[in-house]
């Protein structure tokens, strides 16, 4: 979908991106991460030509991005940013319909699409369609920002720290929603963040940058299990590597048959990290597990967490 070949970008003497090779496949959720000034944002903005690259070649859907006019290119890519950038003088409805209008969709099709997106992002249209951005909370504004980016059903979604300015609770809520939308629409997404937990939670692939260079590119589990160097280890949070690895697995994967466990039941949808916390809080080595609907599912053994994700136990229960 997106292919970077030996791409470089400099601002005067400062090299923002150096000799980057990166490809983003159809339907992948790729998160670019790194400290400030590492080149992650520049990389993202080069994709839709908000920043023009100096050297190398960037291709989108097989064609060099410079073969498109910037406007055409951008209308095929959704774009959402941290400060949202909603047009303050337009209603929610009009904001979301921006790109479809630019593409000259018929009016009723735009209306239907806006409606659908408001539903998708859990903003009831009857309540929100006619509001202006300043009448929304930060989280609602960001939802509208995401809806606007998705409006014309773009081939790829570019997001520049979209949840950076939100409070932790809203942020987690929106991350979950984005994950749901990605699973639902299998849209290609490239996101920039500096929040490693966000990256590990959302990404199919994490791409780590430092000083304009790509340091490591792999699945969250890859990166956690085989960090390329000390910088990666430090960036992941040296002391919490194990905990973060647990965060990638879910209780479902380690479920065993058995109904001897005592204590308060946990849900199969919890991450192992949350399960670990439950073990500690409840002071139990085995905990009962329930399905999402509350029915009994099996049990989870603390000792199984010691071999997480690599080789799950053989005698797994059958999660019904």
């Amino acid at each position, binding site marked *: 979908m997106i292919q970077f070949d030996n791409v470089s970008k400099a601002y005067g003497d400062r090299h923002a991106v150096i000799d980057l090779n990166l490809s983003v496949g159809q339907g992948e959720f790729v998160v670019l991460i790194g400290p400030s000034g590492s080149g992650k944002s520049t990389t993202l903005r080069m994709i*839709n030509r908000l920043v023009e690259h100096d050297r190398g070649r960037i291709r989108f859907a097989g064609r060099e991005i410079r073969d498109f006019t910037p406007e055409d*290119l*951008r209308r095929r890519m959704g774009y959402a940013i941290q400060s949202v*950038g909603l047009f303050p003088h337009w209603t929610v409805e009009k904001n979301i319909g921006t*790109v479809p209008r630019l593409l000259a969709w018929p009016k009723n099709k735009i209306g239907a699409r806006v409606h659908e997106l408001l539903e998708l992002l859990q903003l009831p249209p009857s309540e929100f369609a006619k509001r202006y951005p300043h009448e929304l909370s930060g989280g609602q504004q960001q939802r509208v920002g995401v809806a606007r980016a998705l409006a014309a059903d773009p081939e790829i979604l570019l997001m520049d720290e979209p949840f950076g300015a939100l409070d932790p609770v809203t942020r987690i809520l929106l991350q979950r929603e984005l994950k749901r939308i990605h699973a639902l629409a299998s849209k290609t997404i490239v996101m920039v963040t500096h929040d490693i937990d966000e990256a590990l939670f959302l990404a199919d692939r994490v791409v780590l940058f430092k000083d304009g260079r790509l340091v490591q590119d792999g699945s969250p589990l890859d990166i956690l299990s085989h960090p390329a160097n000390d910088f990666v280890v430090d960036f992941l949070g040296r002391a919490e590597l194990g905990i973060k690895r647990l965060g990638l697995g879910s209780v479902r994967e380690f479920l065993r048959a058995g109904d001897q466990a005592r204590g308060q039941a946990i849900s199969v949808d919890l991450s192992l990290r949350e399960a670990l916390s439950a073990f500690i809080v409840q002071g139990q080595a085995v905990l009962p597990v329930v399905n999402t609907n509350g029915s009994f599912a099996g049990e989870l053994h603390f000792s199984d967490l010691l071999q997480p994700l690599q080789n799950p136990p053989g005698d797994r229960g059958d999660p019904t």
Partner: protein
Amino acid sequence: MNDKRIRDNSLWTTVVLASALVLLALFMTELEPVFRSLFTAQERAMYRQEPFINLLGAHVALVLVSSGSALVVALAAGIWVTRPAGQDYRSTVESLVAMGQTFPPVAVLALAVPLIGFGERPAYIALALYGLLPMLQAVIAGLTSTPGAVVDAAKGTGLSPWQIFRSVEVPLAAPVILAGVRTSVTINIGTAAIAATVGAQNLGSPIIIGLSGFNTPYVLQGAILTGLLAITADGVFEYLSHRAQVWKRASTQ
């Protein structure tokens, strides 16, 4: 709902003021007995060299033409220095504007006479020049006040530079520009009266003649109409500025 009521009120007030202005200009002479009883020592208590309605017309024309030309120039210059092509000149233009506004309007008029001569023309030119400065300042301030994130998002969603200008920058700048035009026009109405000293015939004429001839009724007659005109114009701008920022005060219920 509530906002619409405020807007309608300001529209109605303006219509009432404007009607009062025209009626007073038409029938000022009927009020001669009133002025005579107030100023018993004054031999001539009513200005009769020219009908007031003609003076009002000339005054409004002078203000419209000078402010109108000033607005055209301010928009053109303001837009130019806020585009990439003219960006280098922005600070120069801004300092010129700031400097120009320190001149008192009378001085601008006085300087115009030796250069252009007496009559309507120096008045037009001086007023246009003087009105230009607050407008230009407002245009620049308005067009540069668009939040960076909004412009970034507009570009990123695929709006062309012209579309960004027309449907994002201009509507967002409109309230600020309008405020500048309002100030400029209001000042212009007052300054246009002073232009009577350089030979323009307008509502300033009875004031100037009254002042030089110690004729208070003349001064009052000119001043009342000029004041009423300024208030009416202000009402028009009040209405326009409500219209330009409906979205800011919109409330859902």
